[in-house]
């Protein structure tokens, strides 16, 4: 599906290059496995700016490689995950974060699941209340009762 989009985009904007397949080069990796794992986790949170919705961890574009290197430099220098992400965000903006930060712009986004669920639940509640107001079907008449008794006797 992504390729379909890419194909269409290519038709519209030939300048956009399709990024080659992601294979993180082991030579990029940090010697300390714990640090490398952190760098990978951070990489999954950062967007490759020239790709379609890919993290820098998934992309083989030149820019993604540079960002991966920056992330590893920061991790090796002792930054925390938040500091590394802040370091990149300061230079590239919130656009680079795959998890949008919580701020005035995104508060509606983050609140949306709860809001939708609350409204849905209220609607369901109202539905059941209205339902209760509907009169139940009239009780059986004598004749129907007799017929029912006859039927159940059979």
């Amino acid at each position, binding site marked *: *599906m*992504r*390729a*379909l*989009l*890419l*194909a*269409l*985009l*290519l*038709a*519209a*904007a030939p300048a956009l290059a*399709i990024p*080659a*397949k*992601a*294979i*993180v*080069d*082991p*030579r990029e*990796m940090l010697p300390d496995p714990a640090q490398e794992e952190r760098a990978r986790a951070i990489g*999954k*949170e950062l*967007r490759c700016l020239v790709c*379609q*919705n*890919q*993290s820098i961890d*998934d992309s083989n574009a030149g820019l993604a490689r540079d960002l991966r290197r920056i992330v590893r430099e920061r991790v090796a220098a002792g930054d925390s995950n938040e500091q590394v992400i802040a370091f990149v965000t300061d230079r590239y*903006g*919130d*656009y*680079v*974060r*795959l*998890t*949008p930060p919580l701020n005035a*712009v*995104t508060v*509606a*986004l983050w609140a*949306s*699941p709860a809001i*939708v*669920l609350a409204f*849905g*639940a209220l609607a*369901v509640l109202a*539905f*059941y209340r*209205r*339902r209760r107001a*509907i009169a*139940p079907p009239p009780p059986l008449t004598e004749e129907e009762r007799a017929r029912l008794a006859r039927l159940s006797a059979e």
Partner: protein
Amino acid sequence: MIPELGHFALVLALLLAAAQSILPLVGAARGETRGALLMATGPTTAVAHALFVSLSFGCLMWSFAVSDFSVENVAQNSHSLKPMLYKITGTWGNHEGSMLLWLLILALSSGAVAVFGQNLPATLKARVLAVLGMVATGFLLFTLVTSNPFNRVWPLPEDGQDLNPLLQDPGLAFHPPFLYLGYVGTAVAFAFACAALIEGRVDAAWGRWVRPWTLAAWCALTLGIGLGSWWAYYELGWGGFWFWDPVENASLMPWLLATALLHSAIVVEKREALKVWTILLAILTFSLSLLGTFLVRSGVLNSVHAFANDPERGVFILILLAITVGGSLLLFAWRAPSLEPKGIFAPISREGSLVLNNLLLATSCAVVFVGTLYPLFADLAFGARITVGPPFFNAAVFPVFVPLMVAMAVGPLLPWKRADLWAALARLRLAAAIVLVFAVLYIAAVDRRLLPALGFALALWIVLAAATDLADRIRLGRIPFAESLARARGLPRGIVGGIIAHAAVGICLAGIAGKGIAPERITLMRPGETTTVGPHTLRFDGLRDISGPNWRGTAGTLTLLRDGREVATLSPQRRFYPVQRMSTTEAAIRTSGVADLYAVIGETSEEGQTVVRLHWNPLAPWIWVGTVLMAVGGLVSLSDRRLRVGAPARRRREAAVPAPAE
């Protein structure tokens, strides 16, 4: 000559679709007898419309098959050296061709309603065909005006520009037809909803007519999404299967709502309740299908600027979308209040569980919708460029899905109207006990990560609950086995299909959870070196050059070793397509049915070291086994005599709920 024929056929189809959208509607308004003649034009125009669109599609396919590069679309998307399969599937591997495929499936659907809908009331059928005709008219116009696939090109190019190599793949070749079958299938449910609103009547019979179409569309959509994600898994080369890409979300949203619709239509059919909501769902499901088309076709999601590059198409679809969605919602607002609510039920009941199903599915759909469109909104409203990526979707959808998964196990065990929740839970106590023991053992002995463990536990819960449902229905263990078997054969197909589909969700979920614990290894290897991933040991045996009809490449050889013996070889490839100047990776996947060993090779350095990326994906094949089983469940359900169009009515078997044990 052939392309002109196709173009001409498409214009004729437009005129026929226009007639189909007006004449039967006027006839239906005049009434059964006075309008009979006009209503009879409905099936005729629908069938003729289907024939001419088919002819047109055949002409385009022919142009691709014989590589007629005088046709602009063929020249831009095909190549004389491309294998015949991809020449043919390349017909829909581009914007214009895929629009034509969309039209073809829509035309065939309305033709199918015309031919197989013989037992529909005349006015309802006329109105359904008219609504389908209107949708077809809009999109035929769009295709002819902005996306004509039959434009000629001059001077004649020597050869074509080839199809994007990522699309030259069996998985993706058949992904769009299934997806479109699903999208367009929801158009039929939409047409039934609009027709019912015009008629002002929704009853159990309506529910029964809508269900097979919804079910068929849902099956196709399920398979289409499954094929797409399978393709992403083996072709994109980093082992993922779902990326929360806008284009993926565009297909997931209608699927979520179609799933909800499928379930609420059951309530309409069995209990004549939830009618207004079901109509709304049918309208929304198709609206989201159209929105998906708009999002993909206009490129608006990637950036507002891409949209501006090709505003003609985007604006045209936006107008079509506004007319269809706005018009149908207006119709809904005007007519829905006249639909009389019927069928009372308690919140704890089968109906109540289906209401919960609808609430949660609709919520998850809304969450995906907001997440997908929010970057666009933030850009337009605040001028802020933000990204809403996979971490957001995982975090937002997860809390909605967990209760859905828990509840979907219990719902089928509840009787209609009014139920005893504790009685239903008591029937599941064995399942619950097994799940609990499994969860404790798994966390203690296998893996401490909580999310995958929760996924496995939920998967087991769903499968066991489906098994409990089946066992109870055939009274397994309580009557002689032969009798149980006879009962199993006698179960209505609709029930069997439901049980299969529910269990399939569990199987799929287990596969998804399995990805959460999959180990990977990325390493540099020289020929002769060995490495390990998960329980496996592999030896790298070097590279060799390979070539295909329109590509050349490199294949690596990885030998799977067990106790020093050679068990199998994997041959991941890198390919280069010179015409498109693109390289692709072809992952080598060795599956045992329970786990995948997944290998990709990258570049080779000057020192002769090759990048090798290995994944061991436990349960990964189950993602697609589960997806296919879901569709199988849908098809089994579709084969229920009750839903088969034209089948003589059989005495309805009430869903017999055996008394709880004790």
